[in-house]
């Protein structure tokens, strides 16, 4: 039993930025490269992966109450295979922490701090998230409780203030080339939806675990609404040019002009996004620490905070020399990796558990 406790609602508020933060900036642009004007449909298909992942997670948590995911793996597939799987998960989480920190740093240095080296941004973020993880899950949950409404409302407000500029005809022709482009586009956001899997690491901390599924579903609905809002915004404002934009939502927000008085709200996007990214990196960082604690049966994860930060910093650059390589990885590797690690393997574990009648 974990001593620290959070509520299911707080868990949902942790999961929301953990999914949405990376999804609102670069993901819509990449999705648009495949789905074109059907970009708004892709998140709807992709959300199915999120729902399936959530159901698997909740079923596993019910089958093995108060157990961590790596513990479940060891129990179901045996100690040696379970440990090997745990090692893969640990590397995946550290790599994800590093890669997300890099995406954050690349965005900040490309759009705002053009003269600051990327590594400075990564180190600053890792120092901050390391401090946050040291305080424990309750504090992380409370931080996300503060950040969640700011993140959600800002995206909503940006959409509302852009309404006068929207060009509804950009949506046509709907399904011009059939369903395939929007389904192909859905491969990118499904990687984000599958991140709902991370809640399995927080379920042992829940004081009201019976509400886990309910709040998980609320989170997925909110994520879906956010995705659709963002994709509609870029489609209605940028039209076909959204496919060329690296950060289309940021570009669309530059069109805001209310009475020649309220302009340049892209800085708000950056501020809000930093809040979201901070929560996302903290969640991945914390999950890495929980994974290492489970894998090696450590008494406490706190000793491992700084070694993980050093490794995450190195992973953030490993085989990723520039933002082109990161983009390539986000199309060619990440969607399938996330699906395998967050949806397929847990499904397999659940299937084996059922066959072995746990």
């Amino acid at each position, binding site marked *: 039993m974990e001593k620290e406790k959070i509520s299911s609602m707080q868990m949902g508020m942790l999961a929301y930025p953990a999914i949405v933060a990376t999804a609102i900036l670069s993901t819509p642009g990449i999705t648009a490269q*495949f789905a074109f004007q059907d970009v708004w449909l892709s998140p709807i298909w992709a959300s199915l992966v999120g729902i399936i992942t959530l159901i698997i997670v909740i079923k596993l948590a019910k089958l093995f109450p108060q157990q961590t995911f790596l513990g479940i793996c060891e129990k179901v597939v045996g100690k040696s295979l379970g440990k090997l799987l745990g090692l893969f998960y640990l*590397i995946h989480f550290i*790599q994800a922490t590093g890669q997300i920190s890099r995406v954050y740093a690349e965005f900040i240095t490309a759009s705002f701090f053009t003269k600051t080296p990327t590594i400075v941004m990564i180190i600053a973020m890792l120092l901050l998230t390391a401090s946050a993880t040291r305080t424990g899950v309750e504090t992380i949950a409370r931080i996300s409780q503060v950040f969640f409404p700011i993140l959600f409302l800002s995206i909503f407000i940006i959409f509302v203030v852009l309404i006068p500029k929207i060009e509804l005809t950009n949506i046509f022709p709907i399904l011009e080339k059939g369903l395939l482009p929007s389904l*192909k586009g859905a*491969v990118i956001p499904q990687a984000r939806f599958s991140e709902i899997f991370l809640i399995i690491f927080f379920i042992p901390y829940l004081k009201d675990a019976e509400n886990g599924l309910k709040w998980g579903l609320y989170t997925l609905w909110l994520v879906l609404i956010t995705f659709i809002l963002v994709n509609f915004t870029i489609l209605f404002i940028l039209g076909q040019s959204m496919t060329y934009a690296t950060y289309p939502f940021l570009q669309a927000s530059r069109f805001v002009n209310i009475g020649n008085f309220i302009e340049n709200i892209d800085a708000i996007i950056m501020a809000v996004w930093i809040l979201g990214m901070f929560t996302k990196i903290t969640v991945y960082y914390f999950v890495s620490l929980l994974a*290492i604690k489970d894998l*090696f*049966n*450590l*008494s*406490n994860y*706190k*000793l*491992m905070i*700084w*070694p*993980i930060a*050093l*490794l995450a910093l*190195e*992973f953030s*650059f*490993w*085989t*990723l*020399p520039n933002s082109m*390589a990161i983009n*390539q*990885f986000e*199309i*060619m*590797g*990440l*969607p*399938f*990796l996330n699906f395998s690690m967050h949806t397929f393997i847990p499904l397999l574990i659940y299937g084996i558990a059922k066959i072995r009648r746990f």
Partner: protein
Amino acid sequence: MNWGIFTIAVIISGCIILAEQSIFKKSPRKDKTVFFTFLFVGVILSLFDLPYIIGPVTAIEAFFSPLGNFMSK
């Protein structure tokens, strides 16, 4: 080999060991072994020119290349 970054990584590791002294003294032997192993891996990795060598990202892209190629079509 990048000896400049390696030196910085060694200094950072030293700082980490010093900063974690209070937790370190109370931790069991297993925790200390894992701590030093991960720190050691971090220091060794700093020797390489990481952005330009193969790594987990290469392995992931190679493993999923049939699916990745479908996306690039």
